[in-house]
């Protein structure tokens, strides 16, 4: 009987858990495939009765279509489903986000891997200072960086340039990457280091030939965290980008949200597009992310 009671309890708790975690997202997805007429029904249709992909079509075809007041009224005269002229910026902005995220990932690996190896495996004067330095930079609030970054970037003429985002994202990602990697390198045996050094490897060779191949799980975690942080970042992108040339996905999506004339179903479709890549990555690589978070103890 005790086993049955336990099962009922676990089942109820799991159901509550899933509803809490998934219901808001399910509603977002459901309302992204509804037409304007359906989405404005009271009470709402939890499950769409006439699912449609026209919101997504509008986003992907926005580039070819010339959007004027007439064409968007004509598109859906009964409901006035507004497609904003900025809809065409969404797909390019996702490219911008991708370019920034990939650059930040690559630079992170180049900078963080050697530093983490030195902190974990080499005895040198200033080791604990460098560790505390790295941890301290990790807790600087991004809002405190905004003003100096802005002036700095304006001086170098990088405003409205993707480069400004790459540089500033390094500040918020590198300390965390180093932290995860130090934890992982420390868990690998010192004897490997000794053996490689006796065989005549330099420090750099030891790192590249011995430790990097062994540290793959933590490297994957670093890649994922850095990518997701860059892909999702909003505050700094809001300050440093001004035109579609450099706007990243969160900025364009946010601009839809503040425009009251845009139809809800369109905003929700944009939201779904923004959510799909990071959520897929997270769920597919769940194991690496959880181990990375565990090793890193706290997200940066």
């Amino acid at each position, binding site marked *: 009987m005790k086993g049955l009671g336990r099962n009922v309890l676990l089942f109820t708790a799991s159901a509550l858990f899933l509803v809490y975690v998934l219901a808001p*997202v399910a509603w977002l997805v459901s309302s992204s495939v509804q037409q304007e007429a359906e989405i404005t029904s009271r009470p709402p249709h939890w499950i769409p009765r006439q699912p449609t992909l026209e919101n997504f079509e509008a986003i992907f075809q926005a580039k070819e279509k010339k959007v004027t007041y007439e064409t968007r009224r004509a598109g859906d005269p009964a409901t006035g489903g507004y497609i904003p002229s900025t809809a065409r910026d969404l797909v390019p902005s996702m490219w911008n986000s991708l370019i920034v995220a990939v650059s930040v990932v690559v630079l992170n690996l180049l900078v963080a891997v050697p530093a983490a190896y030195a902190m974990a495996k080499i005895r040198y004067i200033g080791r604990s200072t460098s560790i505390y330095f*790295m941890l301290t930079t990790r807790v*600087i609030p991004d809002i405190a960086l905004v003003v100096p970054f*802005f002036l700095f970037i304006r001086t170098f003429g990088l405003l409205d340039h993707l480069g400004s985002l790459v540089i500033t994202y390094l500040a918020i990602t590198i300390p965390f990457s180093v932290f995860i990697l130090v934890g992982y390198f420390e868990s690998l045996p010192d004897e490997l280091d000794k053996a490689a050094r006796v065989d005549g490897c330099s420090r750099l060779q030891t790192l590249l030939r011995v430790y990097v191949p062994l540290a793959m799980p933590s490297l994957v975690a670093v890649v994922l965290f850095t990518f*997701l942080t860059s892909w999702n970042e909003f505050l700094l992108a809001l300050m440093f980008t001004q035109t579609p040339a450099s706007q990243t996905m969160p900025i364009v999506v946010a601009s839809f949200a503040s425009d009251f004339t845009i139809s809800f179903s369109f905003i929700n479709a944009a939201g779904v597009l923004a959510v799909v890549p990071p959520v897929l990555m997270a769920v597919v690589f769940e194991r690496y992310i959880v181990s990375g978070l*565990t090793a890193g103890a706290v997200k940066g």
Partner: protein
Amino acid sequence: MSIRAGALRGVFGAPVSRYDQASALWLLAPMLAVLLVVAVFPVLYSFWISLFDLRLTRPHRVPFVGLDNYLEVLQDELFWSSVWRTTSFTLMSVTAIMVIALAMALLLNEEFRGRRFLSAMLLVPWAIPYVANGLMWKWIYDSGYGALNGLLFQLDFIDKYMVWLGDSHKTLALIANAFVWKEVPLATILLLVGLKSIPADLYSAARVDGADLWRRFVHITLPALRPSFMLVMIYETMMAIRHFDLFFILTEGGPAEASHVLAWQVYVETFRKLSFGTGSALAYIMALVTFLLAFWLIRTLGRKL
């Protein structure tokens, strides 16, 4: 050289070889250089700016004003009411995060079929960009067609649709709810690590002594979980104090000033009023406060490495 380096490893307090010292510095150099430029320099520069009356609306005259910007900020009534709102947002959010995350971590600490599926789904809110999260909750809270109104109406809790975010008494709590939903997964994962590190024999010993489930929870689980609980709580407090994105997407500080928190004030001061001097002073005050909290965190984490 490799022999010298090999000889000193493992001997505590042994002299550091010159080769090791040099190679360590080379390996660290890129990170130190990048962090100096993108983290240390901005923080110092920010303090420097906060000593000037720098306004972008008047770029050619930038008088040195010493600590006047700080005095101006501290004498501003809006600053103190923002401090109060930030505090209540933080208290609400962190309390809810800790309670929900603890419950979820306790569930995931059990062995049962489907546990792996649950922990994979837990990452969904964590991975969603804050902007999309804000958009989603804005739609849920919508006064005309939102899901919250729809649900409460269908369940007969309300007899007509209500205004949610636009009601200044509810705004902060509703934003906190959106924040909590997104932060709970991380807190859960970190608490779960703490739960898993509690030795199982503690529980079986307590069972032999006749302690029931509740007593085992109060006398074993909670005390053993204390360190990770504190860590998560401090981390989430820092995150709540500095949070900006949801305030921008959901309310822009409104209605009136109902969600005008410190992070939002920094934004208004610098990028709407273009007063970089007072904006920097404000940001610096915020950074100092979160840094005091972070100090504890850094010491704990530094000891671990």
